[in-house]
């Protein structure tokens, strides 16, 4: 038996649990549940202040920030824009697909719900086109909520989700957040050529 044939029951259980949620209470409620799980997790993490932006970038490089701890190392492209080389759910997705040759039913509906305008997705500046799977409904709000707990020189930071790329290579762009953050669609598209996720961090004046 090759390593690829080994079933990771935690991965499969997690994906099947999302499928069950969709089947039992519908896509909108499932999306809300996934976001609430993310926000509850972020609530358990302590706030951190970095004396300067350089200190923060060094911590990112060393994978020492609260955000790095949940998603691994990110690459600072410049001007506060980051690219994430690997989706933190990539292993779960790959394992499930290896075993079942596809994703569970209903996942596309949750992704569509996540991309619709909503109170919480607006509050955390996520979704709005940047969702490419239900996992984005956990990952993006979690990162933004953790970002709310990061200050740089005592100033608050805000995170904008700019885009994301599916395992199949389809890019999802959050035009709303691209416009609001002042970055260009061209930049985000280019970042997604080499990364799975693109976001920016701004320090509030």
């Amino acid at each position, binding site marked *: 038996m090759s390593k690829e044939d080994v079933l990771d029951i935690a991965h499969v259980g997690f994906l099947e649990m999302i499928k069950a949620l969709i089947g039992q*209470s*519908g896509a*909108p*409620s*499932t999306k809300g*549940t996934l976001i609430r799980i993310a926000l509850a997790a972020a609530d358990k993490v302590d706030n951190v202040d970095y004396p300067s932006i350089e200190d923060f970038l060094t911590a990112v490089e060393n994978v020492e920030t609260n955000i790095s701890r949940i998603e691994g190392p990110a690459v600072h492209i410049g001007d506060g824009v980051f690219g994430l080389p690997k989706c933190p759910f990539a292993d779960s997705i790959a394992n499930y697909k290896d075993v079942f040759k596809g994703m569970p039913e209903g996942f596309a509906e949750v992704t569509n719900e996540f991309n619709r305008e*909503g*109170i*919480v997705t607006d509050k955390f500046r996520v979704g709005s086109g940047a969702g490419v799977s239900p996992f984005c409904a956990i990952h993006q709000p979690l990162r933004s909520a953790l970002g709310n707990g990061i200050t740089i020189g005592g100033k608050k930071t805000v995170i904008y989700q700019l885009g994301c790329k599916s395992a199949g290579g389809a890019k999802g762009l959050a035009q709303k957040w691209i416009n609001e953050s002042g970055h260009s669609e061209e930049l985000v598209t280019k970042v997604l050529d080499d990364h799975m996720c693109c976001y920016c961090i701004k320090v509030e004046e």
Partner: protein
Amino acid sequence: MDNIRDLLGDLVRTEGINTAVVVSRDGFVIEGVSTGNVDTEAVGAVVASGIGAAEVMGRELMTGEMTQGMLEYKNGVIVMSTLGMDAILAVVADLSAKLGSVRYQVKKSMPKLLDVL
């Protein structure tokens, strides 16, 4: 024109109604008013999953689109109504409430709430 909070305030002035909440379909509270100790944020999540489950049941049993659901408990009643495609109105009433009056007040408030959403 009234705002959502005013309209929910009118609802909780109905005898027996102690909580009125408008939540998005994903369970986040748009506005809520309670005269008691009810955590309206917590109501949002359970109402969304409750109505989601009721809708799945309706679909499976081919009873059409859901418009309203009423759940009776030992100490009270919950009335949940869909507010268009994107929101839900949930009203919690205690045993002193007259069910007909609760349902009438809910029905009366629906078009006004839809106007301001």
